[in-house]
């Protein structure tokens, strides 16, 4: 294949990564923005979403689209419930102390991984795509489903944006993010907002996972890479900024797709992680900003 089409293909792959990454990073960013909690287990909620999706799809017979749609509804609900449980049982008892919650979410990460390994096993398993239509470009055919993932992600992001900016629920969340004490003084049930935001963040990760399993399979260790990429997106994009998160997700997703097509993926990851660490060191304000104690 010539360079041009090769680049187009790489860019398309990058766009799919961006779409999924945007959803996941949005979840991470919401949880950090509102609760000041760095959720290291975010990648495992994604993994859990994929594993549950496989489980639901394997129970549903008939057209693959049925199983997929069932997974799209049930998997985020289950993952949200697990997150809610973790929030109530662990994070709330730690009073959301930033350092203690990081240690605790590392614990949650390992427990979820262990559960997946024990009950799902070490194998990678796919979910059938709901449809197999291929879009024909002059140089190659491309999966219609992948393009649909991009569309679905954009739609979900628009919905999230609408909820955050245009509804009372969003107002309550933003008020809590702005100032916890004042929000409490205005009779906002901060406690419930926290629980809701944590569950919502996990559900966004689960949706991203359900969208991705027909493309890449479900595996109990699949959470780590997206977690690191989400961190990168959130740090580059700036916290609590929906637009920043989106721009960074597209940027990181595209460069990940393109760099992986032309370079060794390990080298690409190495350089990206190093750059982001240095960004955090030299420009901490506006990125993790006020969080640093």
């Amino acid at each position, binding site marked *: 294949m010539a360079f041009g089409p090769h680049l187009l293909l790489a860019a398309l792959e990058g766009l799919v990564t961006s779409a999924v990454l945007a959803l996941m990073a949005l979840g991470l960013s919401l949880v950090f923005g509102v609760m000041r909690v*760095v959720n290291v287990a975010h990648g495992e909620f994604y993994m859990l979403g994929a594993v549950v999706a496989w489980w639901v799809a394997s129970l549903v017979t008939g057209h693959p689209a049925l199983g997929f749609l069932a997974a799209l509804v049930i998997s985020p609900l289950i993952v949200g419930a697990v997150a809610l449980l973790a929030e109530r049982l*662990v994070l709330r*008892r*730690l009073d959301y102390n*930033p*350092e*203690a919650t*990081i*240690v*605790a979410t*590392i*614990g*949650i*990460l*390992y*427990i*979820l*991984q*262990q*559960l997946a*390994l*024990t009950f799902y*096993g*070490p194998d990678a398993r796919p979910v059938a795509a709901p449809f197999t239509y291929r879009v024909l470009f002059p140089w190659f055919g491309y999966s219609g489903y992948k393009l649909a993932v991009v569309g679905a992600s954009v739609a979900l992001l628009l919905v999230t944006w609408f909820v955050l900016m245009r509804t009372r629920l969003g107002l309550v969340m933003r008020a809590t993010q702005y100032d916890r004490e004042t929000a409490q003084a205005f009779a906002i049930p901060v406690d419930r907002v926290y629980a809701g935001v944590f569950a919502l963040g996990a559900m966004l990760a689960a949706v991203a996972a359900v969208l991705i399993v027909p493309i890449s399979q479900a595996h109990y260790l699949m959470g*780590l890479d997206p977690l*690191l990429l989400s*961190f990168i997106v959130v*740090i580059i994009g700036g916290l609590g900024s929906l637009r920043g998160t989106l721009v960074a997700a597209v940027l990181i997703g595209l460069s990940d797709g393109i760099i992986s097509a032309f370079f*060794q993926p*390990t*080298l690409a*990851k*190495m350089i990206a*992680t*190093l750059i*982001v*660490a*240095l960004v*955090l*060191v*030299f420009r*901490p304000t506006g990125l*993790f900003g006020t*969080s*640093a*104690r």
Partner: protein
Amino acid sequence: MTGEEATREMPATPVPRRRRPPAGNRVSTGRVVALHAGVIALLLALQFVLPSYHHGVLARVLVLAVFAMGYNLLFGYAGLLSLGHAMFFSAGLYGAGLSIYHLGWSAPSAFAGGVISGAVLATAIGVLALRTTGVAFMIVTMMFAQVFYLTTLYFNVWTGGDQGVVLQQQARTIPFAGSTIDLTDPATRYFAALALFSVVLFSVLALVRSPRGRVLVAIRENEQRTTMLGYDTFASKLVAVVISGIVCSAAGAAYALLFGYVGSTFASVQYSILPLLWVLLGGAATTLGPFVGTLLMYYLIDLSNDVLAAWAPGWNFSAIGIVGIALILLILFFPKGLLGSIRERWVPWLP
């Protein structure tokens, strides 16, 4: 509040008591040294009575406890929570292992090479990461460690990547007084591990009881106040990172020499979490806590693997679930760890 009020009402007349009651940093050095010497004597005696399996385990635990002690210096005393200490351990591991494997260095110079690698890396990481605090410090150290881990994978031609490299027996010997010390011999290995452990234990003890150690604790408790007492807190924290890096890389270098294997697993994020877990379990900011935590966790994982394998054969278990549960239970219910709680309730002079 009511308690404070009550104390305020109390007359300020001095209660008659001993002039110099032993507590805190003013305790007589004798008792503290005796305790630590006793622990080392006990470990020395165990070498002669332990069955071979536990003998091997204990040698490994001693080396990993050195890793934990290095971590504890930074996390327990200076209050800096790093999530990237695997890079310092593996800097020592690779520094020693690869200089034997590729350059044919002798065991002592390889050990020195490992420690120097760790010191250089810790200095660089410290200068960069200490520009951040709190959560950002945790994330930054984790990311630098991830870069280190990916580096060991990327240069797999030299490092052996996931597979790692095995060091041959003849490379792990030290010529000494006409004969050779064979580090692969179980008894020698145990003594070498114990020697390193003892040196580090007493060095840490001396450091934390020195004025410099008191400054580290002061930074953990209130950095701003410490600055206003005239201390350059950045310099103190940097020294703490470097010393911590040196101790951890000494553990890594010793691991390479004593157990003969060097691989990227030791650079993975799990080996950054483990020392945190060991220190939390044993008790942060206690001198013996890291050893106690490492020992207990090692046997806890060992034991639970046996029990689960017997109870549910054919299921997929690994240590990670136990590690996860232990982390959450400790941080929720037992944040001071074993020795920390003992010190709080019963033995206030415990260092």
